[in-house]
């Protein structure tokens, strides 16, 4: 009986330890997340967007009256 209680306690402690470890802010998480953020804003990353939008805008009928836009 005692053995079972000890085993359950050990397992519980291990689970709590694992949860605490996984919730601990990792030292590199801020760096990696910031790097991803900055990389996603790079000119290289935005090139695809420009290529996608330019043809759609160029195709606009020049005779269509233009309304003001925000």
């Amino acid at each position, binding site marked *: 009986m005692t053995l079972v209680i000890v085993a359950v306690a050990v397992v519980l402690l291990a689970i709590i330890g694992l949860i605490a470890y996984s919730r601990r802010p990792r030292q590199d998480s801020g760096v990696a997340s910031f790097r991803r953020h900055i990389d*996603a804003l790079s000119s290289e*990353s935005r090139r*695809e967007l420009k290529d996608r*939008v330019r043809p*759609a805008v160029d195709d606009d009928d020049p005779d269509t009256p233009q*309304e*003001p836009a*925000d």
Partner: protein
Amino acid sequence: MARDLAIDLGTANTLVYMKGRGIVLNEPSVIALNRQTGEVLATGREAWQMIGRTPGYIVAVRPLRGGAITDFEITERMIRLLLQRVGVSRFTRPKVVICVPSAITEVERRAVTDAARRAGAADAQLIEQPMAAAIGADLPIDEPVGNMVIDIGGGTSETAVISLGGIVALEAVRVGSFDIDAAIQAYVRREHGIAIGERTAEEVKVAIGSADPTHDENQAEVRGRDLMSGLPKTVILTPEEIRLAIDDVLSSITSSVVRCLSKAPPELAQDFLVRGMYLVGGGGLLRGLAQRIERETQVPVKMSTMPLEAVVMGAGHCIEHYDALKNMFMGARR
């Protein structure tokens, strides 16, 4: 599976960007309703053509003013119809990123997200217009240098200093190109005694409006209703008159640009002298406005290559890189 969307829900125009496709819709933010039954009769360009020309039972309205929702129910219906037009149905609920003015209140933000969710979006995130504009205008905002963007929309004008992917300084005023139209309407009424509609005022602005004298100036013939006799009447307006009429509105915009410049840290302020400021938004197309801002701030002003689409393109980039850029959304930073 629905394709995610970015929406520039502007006071004047609404643009929709679809993930993987590009800009799929660009229409005026106008809806026409049957006043008696509440039924929607038209949206977008068709409804815009009805403004000021409807019989008593039809009302053509812009449900946004100053960048904020003035009529929640009508805005929701307009967004729902726009989403339907780009293929959103009851079974395909996309994630949506919506551009909003940075100056809107918490209540106004909630109104926008609620309207989008009720109109069929699975999730609605907000992004500040100047940040989206800077991304869409292809400014090097990923670098540690000062980038300044001036976004002059229909109802708001916003100036932001951006560096390393974040806003450093921001200044916004609820004044935009609709206020320029309103100032022209008020001037013609006061000085010439005739009433003109908002579309006529806008046409005058486009034809002869300017912020600074230009080399090719013409007069404009304007028709309206004489306030004394009630009869149709024609008057001639000059560019000088229009400049006088809109001076207060333009001063308000340039003052906010100056305030933003004064908020910028000195290390970034020196970058503006070399790199200049970028003008986006339909209001920025007013002749001579860039020169006037340049004259009053002593900083070079450049026009973005795609001023009308810059904001939705920036939001579109955020929807393309949703996970990497979700920290930029307004809710995420609170």
